[in-house]
């Protein structure tokens, strides 16, 4: 790309960074440093604010860049992500949001540990939460890398690495200084920017086709070189049965994973009541649904206007389809309109990455400090020192995410997010649902449910074609691929549920009826909720 694009995009992004840093300073001015303040922002956000923040946490660069890119390359098969990402919110709304808000304080482990033996349960759920968060972070970092590669024309590996490091450093500053309050406001700002940008691009795409969605689809199909097959399932996940099972596996992981994502769960604690949590989810579903509908238009629009070949040429995984589309919609690479629109989209994508990364870092630092550190240390840490630990943990997680992000540079970000969802659905969802709804659930069941989902999910990913054994994998040189599917969900999600069930059946522990009664009453009425 030209110097103009770079300069303008960097300027816009710089403005966003300045605004968000100002927010961070401003909201942390009266900071009392309590855990309540750091993890939950004082629990005083309104449902609308929280709804926008949830949408901001969820509509990651993976969706904005990755899903549209997949649609641009593979047509209908990319749409599965859009559908799965949205339908998943019904699980959250019906089974999780209100109940978790009523029972927990800051993290998933709070809900589970309330009725079971605290220490083993906290260590297990804390470990799985951190694992999920790190996987999700890597996806965002890869997105940042792809964007920079596009901005700098893919010529400077060093610049790409430095940007990933810069994003990591910024997020650590937001999280450790501003806590949940700053993170939430950054999410809200980003959410508005992202939705605004998406609406503008969608309008431009539809204008280009005079509002004729049919012609958009036909042009996309024609330009793709696949004809009608582009509009039907099967292009990416058709063919042999391995690919088809991969598709089903991914579909399951998407719909069941959201309810187990630590950074989504932690958002419900930023509102005062379960009712407010429900209303925030309703807001979020409206915003997210609208957004994913628009990514479909953008994806087919990129196929029709830019063409899959150009998209693939820029980034093999399709992550740069939307910026390229913006360039074309604005009038092409040489025009002012193209420059401005491209820079705008690039800056929004950066902002998106930064905000999501901040949200996940906060959630995982809460898991480290509130769950792991508090349990592994014999003496209960005081709240103030727990927050200090969380700040240090944010730095550590930032460093880890930067390192992995640099390593996984060439994978499609939507696909990486699919992995994070699979792990969340396998390790976090079974234990959460069991402890909310199953009277006879025991500590051993909880521990088995977590590790019985987490270990298979992670091991299957390591043994999958993602890591080794194929030209596109992380380590193409070696081959220790024994599991055919890219996404482990189809196997590991049932394993998590079965392990929790078996653990409960085999444990000698008598289920505590009173503790279950407390969980059930509190979850449905909000009695004693903080």
């Amino acid at each position, binding site marked *: 790309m030209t110097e103009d694009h770079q300069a303008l995009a960097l300027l816009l992004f710089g403005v966003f960074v300045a605004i968000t840093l100002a927010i961070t300073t401003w909201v942390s001015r009266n900071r009392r440093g309590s855990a309540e303040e750091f993890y939950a922002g004082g629990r005083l956000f309104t449902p609308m604010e929280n709804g926008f923040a949830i949408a901001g946490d969820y509509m990651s660069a993976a969706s904005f860049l990755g899903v549209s890119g997949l649609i641009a390359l593979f047509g209908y098969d990319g749409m599965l992500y859009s559908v799965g990402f949205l339908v998943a919110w019904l699980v959250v709304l019906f089974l999780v949001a209100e109940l978790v808000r009523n029972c927990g304080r800051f993290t998933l482990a709070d809900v589970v540990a309330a009725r079971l033996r605290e220490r083993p349960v906290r260590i297990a759920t804390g470990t799985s939460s951190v694992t999920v968060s790190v996987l999700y972070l890597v996806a965002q970092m890869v997105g940042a890398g792809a964007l920079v590669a596009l901005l700098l024309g893919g010529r400077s590996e060093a610049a790409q690495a430095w940007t990933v490091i810069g994003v990591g450093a910024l997020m650590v500053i937001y999280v450790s200084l501003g806590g949940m309050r700053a993170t939430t406001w950054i999410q809200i700002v980003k959410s508005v920017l992202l939705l605004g940008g998406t609406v503008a691009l969608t309008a431009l795409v539809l204008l280009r086709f005079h509002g004729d969605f049919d012609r958009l689809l036909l042009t996309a199909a024609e330009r793709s070189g696949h004809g009608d097959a582009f509009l*039907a399932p099967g292009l990416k996940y058709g063919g042999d049965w391995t690919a088809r099972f991969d598709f089903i596996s991914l579909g399951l992981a998407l719909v069941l994973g959201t309810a187990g994502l630590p950074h989504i769960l932690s958002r419900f604690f930023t509102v005062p009541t379960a009712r407010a949590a429900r209303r925030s989810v309703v807001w979020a579903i409206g915003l997210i649904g609208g957004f994913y509908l628009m990514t479909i238009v953008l994806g087919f629009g990129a196929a029709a206007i830019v063409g899959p070949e150009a998209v693939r040429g820029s980034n093999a995984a399709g992550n740069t389809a939307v910026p390229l589309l913006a360039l074309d919609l604005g009038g092409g690479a040489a025009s002012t309109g193209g420059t401005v629109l491209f820079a705008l989209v690039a800056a929004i994508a950066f902002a998106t990455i930064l905000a999501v990364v901040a949200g996940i870092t906060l959630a995982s630092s809460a898991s480290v400090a509130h769950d792991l550190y508090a349990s592994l240390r014999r003496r209960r840490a005081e709240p103030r020192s727990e927050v200090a630990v969380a700040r240090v943990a944010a730095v550590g997680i930032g460093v880890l995410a930067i390192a992995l992000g640099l390593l996984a540079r060439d994978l499609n970000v939507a696909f990486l997010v699919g992995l994070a969802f699979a792990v969340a659905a396998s390790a976090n969802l079974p234990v959460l649902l069991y402890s909310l709804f199953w009277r006879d659930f025991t500590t051993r069941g909880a521990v088995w449910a977590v590790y019985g989902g987490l270990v298979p999910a992670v091991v299957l990913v390591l043994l999958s074609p993602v890591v080794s054994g194929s030209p596109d994998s992380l380590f193409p040189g070696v081959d220790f691929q024994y599991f055919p599917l890219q996404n482990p969900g189809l196997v590991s999600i049932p394993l998590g549920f079965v392990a929790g069930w078996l653990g409960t059946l085999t444990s000698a522990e008598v289920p505590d009826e009173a503790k279950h009664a407390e969980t059930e009453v509190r979850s449905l009425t909000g009695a*004693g909720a903080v």
Partner: protein
Amino acid sequence: MCSSDGRPCAAGGARYDDPWYDALASGWGESGGTDAPEADPPVAGDVYLEVQRSAAFREVRSRYRRFVVPAVAVFLSWYVAYVVAATTAPGLMARPVVGAVNVAMVAGLGQFLTTFLLTWAYARHARLRRDRSALELRWDTQELTRVTRGGVS
């Protein structure tokens, strides 16, 4: 505190003329009407057991379940059917409906529509059928646990 809708009552040895009170199978304050014995103050865990067994709570719980269980079954099977159809019946999914729009596109957009509809229905159901009783139960339960804690200390 005691109301006619079957909410649990706070005062340990008081006289109950609440017709729903018999539904409470708790071990304390079961007086059968007249001379209530001076029961030991219950521990906090018993309060939750008592509330859990109260008619009002069971009503809230069954309203929640009566909506959520079928709704989850419906949207999960509709979603799984969609995913499985996309992989096993591409021929069916590729069948054109109107212009370039085929069955797959209609089904995908249908998923969006049902998600929005179910969200609306759930929020409405919770607002009209659950919120008020749940809130009353919340205050009653908190009152009971407060009394309990006061009694023990």
